[in-house]
């Protein structure tokens, strides 16, 4: 993974010092809250319902065991002993004190971490494939490009006061695991007819009030032009994006209002002016960054009889292998997803002890590296098959061995009204109730692959639009109600979910989901996944089942 050099170290220290001064000016009264707010947001510090919330950047979701241990330390020392992994591969601490945040940033800087641009109207954490470097279907490691973009975007003098936040995702595999079409800019690595790799540039995807799948504005962009092209897009957005209405300020609105052709023309005109200039990426720079992401040397191995025997002897282990493993490009290895979705637990949360446990397991079994997925789980990407049983046992001791990746209890949920100032309804207890209801592993496995995403408000941080089942919390006359959508998808067949019918009360959600699942089980064809059934039958059978007699 990327390792800081002296330049990077100096930068985060200088940035932490700048924030320390800004906090001091705030406390001394030299800055009002209105003046301080944009400054603290640019260092990821929110003021939420109960307390401040600090969002620490985990660039493209990759961190070392040392960094994970530092996050555990921060949770213990300056927070309440836990953290929350987010749908943008970052981590949030819910209880820091303003006066402690400069110390927290200093502590992060020591391990090459920061909270730069995790909030505010600027370029946010660039997300990438959590299986980078390891997946069998990989074209190239998307994190190389996420790192290059991250550096270019850091304290960019022109793009720090954009009309709105800006989210970029990069994917480098055949299969998209980053929801690339739901970002302001999605970059999809492609091979052209000459065998060169470059980027398909997708613009204007997003969720929130106006969910929409992005549009390809350029089918193939050579790598060396990546930054100049992004600069052209951002400059066009900065100049033309709406400033009059917060809810219409994302680039997706600009694209829709200007039209794809006119927008693309404007971008390409600016790009013509600056391409081949100072932002052109020379080969040596690409190599320099690539070298940081060279995968560990792994010895291919044949099937391990001990592993097979362990599965026969321990059915729980076998179930975990079925749900939590993904094929690795090197035979005899696996990509392991660690579930942070214990049924009945809080999705995406980990205690300090659990973070330490994962760090230890990463050191023992995966070359000291951990990834965070946008589904709020963790990944150990390079585990030998022979080590899987020991790893599983270690996870079990830490309460992290739920065998539910990609199944119904693997729920994405935003913090919701329990924590967030913007929320209309709670999301976490809804997730807890649903996951508890479907906690029987055999039932979950029988239901099969399904995504269920919950957001506590229209800002959609829980990505409900992109869930096979989506749940959106709304406020109806002061009470919590939930609108259910079906048929959303975040993968290659990206789609926005469709509303089933009137919202249901908090106490009716579990029953509604149960009805939907029972309907699916009764009409599905052999081996048909939930989303495939919905695509085949449409939403009517489910609508009927849920609202039929109304």
């Amino acid at each position, binding site marked *: 993974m990327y390792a800081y*050099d*002296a*330049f990077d170290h*100096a*930068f985060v220290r*200088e*940035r932490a*010092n*700048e924030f320390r001064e*800004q906090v001091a000016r705030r406390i001394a009264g030299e800055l009002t809250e209105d*003046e301080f707010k*944009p*400054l603290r947001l640019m260092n990821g510090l929110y003021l939420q319902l109960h307390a401040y919330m600090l969002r620490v950047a985990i660039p493209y979701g990759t961190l070392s065991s040392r960094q994970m241990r530092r996050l555990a330390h921060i949770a213990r020392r300056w927070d309440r002993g836990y953290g929350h992994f987010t749908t943008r591969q970052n981590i949030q601490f819910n209880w820091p004190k303003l006066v402690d945040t400069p110390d927290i940033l200093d502590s992060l800087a020591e391990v090459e971490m920061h909270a730069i641009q995790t909030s505010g*109207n600027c370029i946010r954490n660039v997300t990438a494939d959590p299986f980078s470097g390891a997946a069998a279907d990989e074209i190239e490691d998307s994190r190389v490009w996420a790192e290059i973009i991250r*550096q*270019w*975007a*850091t*304290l*960019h*003098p*022109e*793009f*720090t*006061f*954009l009309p709105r936040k800006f989210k970029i995702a990069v994917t480098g595999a055949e299969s998209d695991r980053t929801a690339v079409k739901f970002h302001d800019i999605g970059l999809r690595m492609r091979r052209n007819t000459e065998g060169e790799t470059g980027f398909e540039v997708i613009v204007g995807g997003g969720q929130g009030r106006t969910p929409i799948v992005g549009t390809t504005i350029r089918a193939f962009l050579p790598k060396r032009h990546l*930054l100049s092209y992004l600069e052209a897009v951002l*400059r066009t957005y*900065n*100049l033309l994006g709406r*400033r009059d209405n917060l809810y219409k300020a994302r680039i997706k609105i600009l694209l829709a209002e200007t039209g794809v052709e006119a927008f693309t023309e404007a971008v390409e005109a600016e790009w013509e*002016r600056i391409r081949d200039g*100072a*932002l052109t*990426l*020379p080969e*040596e*720079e690409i190599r*320099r960054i690539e070298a940081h992401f060279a995968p560990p040397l792994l010895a291919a191995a044949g099937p391990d009889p001990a592993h097979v025997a362990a599965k026969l002897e321990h059915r729980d282990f076998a179930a975990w292998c079925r749900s939590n493993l993904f094929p690795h490009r090197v035979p005899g290895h696996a990509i392991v997803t660690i579930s942070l979705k214990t049924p009945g637990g809080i999705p995406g949360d980990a205690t300090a002890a659990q973070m330490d446990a994962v760090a230890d397991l990463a050191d023992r079994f995966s070359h000291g590296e951990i990834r965070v997925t946008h589904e709020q789980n963790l990944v150990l990407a390079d585990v030998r098959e022979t080590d899987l049983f020991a790893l599983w046992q270690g996870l079990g001791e830490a309460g992290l061995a739920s065998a539910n990746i990609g199944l119904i209890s693997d729920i994405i949920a935003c913090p919701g009204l329990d924590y967030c100032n913007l929320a209309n309804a709670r999301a976490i207890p809804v997730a807890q109730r649903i996951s508890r209801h479907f906690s029987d592993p055999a039932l979950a496995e029988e239901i099969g692959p399904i995504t269920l995403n919950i957001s506590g408000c229209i800002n959609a941080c829980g990505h409900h639009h992109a869930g096979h089942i989506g749940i959106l919390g709304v406020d109806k006359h002061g009470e919590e109600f939930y609108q259910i959508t079906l048929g959303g998808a975040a993968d290659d067949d990206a789609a926005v979910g469709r509303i089933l019918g009137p919202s249901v009360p908090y106490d009716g959600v579990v029953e509604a989901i149960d009805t939907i699942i029972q309907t699916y089980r009764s009409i599905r064809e052999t081996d048909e996944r939930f989303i495939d059934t919905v695509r085949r039958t449409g939403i009517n059978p489910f609508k009927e089942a849920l609202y039929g007699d109304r």
Partner: protein
Amino acid sequence: MAIVKNGRVFDDPWQALDGRDPAGIDPATPLLVNLAELGAHGGTLDRFSRIGVSLLPADTVHDLGKTLERVELVAVTFPKFNDGRAFSQARLIREALGFKGEIRATGHILRDQLNFLRRGGVDAIEVPEGAPADSWAEAWTSEANRFKGYYQPALDNRKDETPARPSGPLRRWAKPAAVGSLAAGALAVHGASCAGAWAY
């Protein structure tokens, strides 16, 4: 109104036309007009020895066109600090149109934006009403010296000239800014000598 230019405080000699009839104004007055006024008064502004143009955030920089040859000052506006269009306008005026005169930021600016402005081609700011001009002048310089380097080329940095230092071709080392780096009286001079040394 006080101006801070390249770290020093000056009184602002410029007057905004502000809807008046240019015929009634002394042609020695440095006159600041907006795009609409520029279009409306056209040739009658030729009497004035010093002309400046003031842009609104929605104005298109490329509409300035050939006018810039005759203009000594461009003012870009921040109706609110978080309306960042002026950053791109300044960048384009400097980089795309090759303007060598003064680019001034006006309106609602935060001290914490000074470095971004400076890196974007802005060399002067109109000090917000009631704010202490001296401390803003100081901040212009001290903020420029906060970071030793930056991650992207902009309009103020120099390329790394020492191969031994850790770097990459996109990184730029910050030019150390000295207080009062602008020669005294330079505000009175036209054109090229107003420019900072734009190395990029």
